[in-house]
């Protein structure tokens, strides 16, 4: 999460896209990205929602963004289902330098609660 939350910030900065990064870990907030709420709803429904939640979130994403975006969103979730498992199963550490540089960012998003190493 640390790596890709930082990539999210970098991408938003490069493309001058508004962003509320705390929405990653706090669903009461709007991420501000175009269609951000629909994307977050889709991820939540796919990973921890009911079948009805998923049908609703999928339809909303299709209506708002179209089929190519739905397929890409499902594929990205799939990729990180894979990479999260690889990282956790192998005990992949975050480097000391990265930990030092990202202290404020981790505090902003409340990420240290996920550090199991």
């Amino acid at each position, binding site marked *: 999460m640390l790596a890709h939350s930082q990539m999210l910030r970098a991408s*938003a900065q490069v493309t001058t896209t508004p962003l509320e990064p705390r929405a990653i870990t706090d669903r009461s907030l709007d991420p501000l990205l175009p*269609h951000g709420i629909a*994307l977050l709803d889709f991820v*939540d429904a796919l*990973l921890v929602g009911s079948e009805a939640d998923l049908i609703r979130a999928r339809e909303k994403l299709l209506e708002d963004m179209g089929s190519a975006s739905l397929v890409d969103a499902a594929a990205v979730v799939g990729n990180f289902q894979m990479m999260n498992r690889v990282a956790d199963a192998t*005990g992949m*550490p975050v480097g000391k330098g990265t930990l030092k540089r990202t202290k404020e960012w981790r505090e902003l998003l409340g990420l240290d609660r996920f550090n199991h190493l």
Partner: protein
Amino acid sequence: MVQWDVFDFSGSQVPVRSDLGQAFRRDWNRLALPGTWWSGSERVAIAAEVRSARYGTDHKDRTLSESAREAARVIGVQPATVRRPWVESVAGKLGYPRYIEITGIASRLVAIDTVHDGIGVEREPLPEPEPGEPSRTAEPLARPGAAWVPMVGGASITQALSLVDPEAVAQEDLHGPLYLSYEGMAMMDYVAGLSRAQMELVAARTSAINECFY
């Protein structure tokens, strides 16, 4: 070989880009064939164990040892609960290479099944295993390091499975079609079905739900 019409997404209500189906077929072929430390039957049994644990599907096969089944279930369903003593215990019984091969099989299966669930199509039946013996090829350059398992070079997510090189290759082969190639990750202004920022929002939220700090 896996049949040509596997992953053709003919039942999908939305068009699915062809590179996804091609990548999934390559992975199914790998799954069915003898691997490095597990036979084709054992590899498919590992996948069946993961599916059984994730979806509650019936699975009475006892091809695998209890340690192998436990590793498949935990990595498939509860990866955030994995801790170093558990890895050392399981790898102590199976050996690190067999543990890594299970990690590769389980993680890719979950990725492929998640895509199917996301777009609303039936998950593909597991392939019929191919006969033959695993190659049992050791990776001479792998060493213990900062991570919990030996790998080639410094601890890095792209090298995480390098103790069993075909598993690292398979991970990279799926990573590109699902998200971006390792090289393509430098493109912060990339746009396809999603913008790069939207992709990263999805990636970060997935990791948050999975409680994956990395």
